[in-house]
């Protein structure tokens, strides 16, 4: 709309004025570009360049001489780094692991967030402000600090939860091989449910009151009102939170990285980012780059695939 305000104005002026106007216009275009320059340069250097560099780097391998005396040489390797990555069991396992986590944890978390948002939005809710602030707390906390906190809460000799289970005769080790992934899922649920709930809640607040009133006049209330009127209207917000959650799960790093030292099951290549970091750590930059590119493509495919899938279903319904 802002464009429309200026452009007709420019065209409508008389020929003599046009020349004057166009020098002023050129001057303004120049100022606009100057205002954009710092961001443009930094955007190119910090966002576009790393992507291009990774793409380029992923096509090369580094060769070191046996003794490491001469300089390592770079050799064009085509897609061999990609082949290596896709044949590497550790990397493939890391992808399967976050996939499993995404398929189980994301629906649990969003289901919980939806339930809480609907309850908070219902007529029966009291103390709304306090609950909102409480649910928001974990999201405001640095992920690393939250992970450190949970790593203590899971520690065998410290955990109040282990102690609690002990009282009822259960021996639960949150860091054991069988439970490590569940424990990580719990950390993510703790950290992000409130954030998703707030997004859904603000979408609920945007639903016009007349709509719910009308439904109530027709005798639709409580759960039926929530399920048949509110949830369908939440569709865009639900898709948005799901896509954010898919992306977040694919990028999983902090929680497992911090549990690594205490949980034997959490290996150094536990998630795709950790696997790529490991490859970079042993100076295999080509492989690290290829793994980053594969992860980016998979994340893109998963999130856009989900959006397309929901759009198609939306049309069919």
């Amino acid at each position, binding site marked *: 709309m802002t464009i429309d305000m200026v452009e007709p104005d420019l065209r409508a002026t008389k020929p003599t004025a046009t020349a004057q106007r166009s020098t002023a216009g050129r001057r303004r275009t120049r100022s606009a570009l100057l205002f*954009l320059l710092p961001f443009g340069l930094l955007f190119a250097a910090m966002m576009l360049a*790393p992507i291009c560099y990774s793409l380029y780097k992923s096509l090369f391998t580094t060769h070191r001489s046996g003794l490491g005396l001469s300089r390592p040489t770079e050799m064009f390797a085509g897609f061999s780094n990609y082949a290596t990555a896709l044949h590497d069991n550790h990397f493939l396992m890391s992808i399967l692991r976050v996939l499993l986590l995404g398929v189980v944890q994301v629906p649990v978390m969003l289901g919980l967030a939806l339930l809480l948002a609907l309850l908070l939005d219902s*007529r029966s809710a009291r103390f709304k402000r306090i609950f909102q602030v409480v649910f928001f707390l974990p999201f*405001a906390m640095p992920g690393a600090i939250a992970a450190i*906190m949970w790593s203590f809460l899971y520690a065998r000799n410290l955990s109040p939860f282990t102690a609690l289970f002990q009282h009822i005769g259960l021996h639960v080790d949150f860091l054991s091989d069988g439970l490590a992934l569940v424990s990580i899922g719990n950390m993510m649920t703790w950290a992000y449910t409130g954030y998703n709930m707030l997004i859904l809640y603000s979408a609920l607040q945007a639903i016009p009151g007349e709509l719910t009133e009308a439904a109530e006049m027709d005798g639709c209330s409580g759960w039926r009102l929530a399920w048949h009127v509110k949830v369908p209207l939440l569709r865009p917000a639900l898709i948005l939170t799901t896509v954010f959650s898919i992306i977040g799960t694919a990028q999983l790093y902090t929680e497992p990285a911090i549990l690594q*030292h205490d949980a034997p099951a959490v290996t150094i290549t536990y998630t795709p980012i950790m696997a790529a970091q490991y490859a970079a750590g042993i100076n295999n930059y080509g492989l690290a780059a290829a793994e*980053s590119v594969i992860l980016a493509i998979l994340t893109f495919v998963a999130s856009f695939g989900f959006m397309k899938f929901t759009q198609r279903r939306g049309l069919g319904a």
Partner: protein
Amino acid sequence: MTTTRYATSSGTTARKVPLASRSGVFLVLLLFSVYTLIPLWWLLVSATKSSGDLFGDGGLWFSHFDLWTNIRAVFHQQDGIFGRWILNSVLYSAGGAFVATLISAMAGYALAKYPFRGRDLAFNIVLGAVLIPASMFALPLYLMFSSIGLVNTYWAVFLPCIVSPFGVYLARIYAADGVPYELLEAGRVDGASEARIFWRIAMPVMSPALVTIFLFQFVGIWNNYLLPVLMLNDDKLQPVTVGLAGWRNGFENGIPYTVTLTGAVLSLTLLVIAFLPLQRFWRSGLAAGSVK
């Protein structure tokens, strides 16, 4: 809209909500609050305990109050490096957020108020970049920075943090609606340069949006872990998140749990002190980011 809804809910229908339903809803919300708060409560209580008491009981209530001893221990560990970490975090966060806000304001203003060819394309690129999470760039940045020798310097964390597509997006939205053309034209008629118009007219009008951008970027940088942990080996350059994670894993090297726990509580306390008064801006930004 909402007012009519609340008016009826407090009037006619509130009486119709049965007590059972009200207490049921309250119970579920309370249950989740307990799940949210117990870990934080445990952390807080644990920071007040000596090592002996920490391992002694279930841990959800206070024993001997040793908070001050623990705080002193935090600041003495490794020659007081904790203070340096906090300072680093403040430096990265405040410095990065300040520069990011300025750059975003300039770019957002230009995208909102100047017609030029390719403007829509530029804005769409920015919009696309908003959707890509910062963590996706961390490893590629590490590979690139290590090839030019920038790894393990302040710049390695600072430079990526001053680019905020979300900031540009917010600034553009705000400038488009909030800065009237008449004001800019008036400035031009008075012979002010474009830079002066931006500084003296646009910036003051945009200030609420700028506060939001600053806060978002500040919290984002403060909470970041992946980028600094990749970039910084030297613990003198690390922010507090990376430093504390190092302590957490350094138990074998003789760093007591109590020190790490208390350090975590201290870093959170600072964040709370800095941000509780500004919560209003922070939430309005969240709404703008998610709903629009």
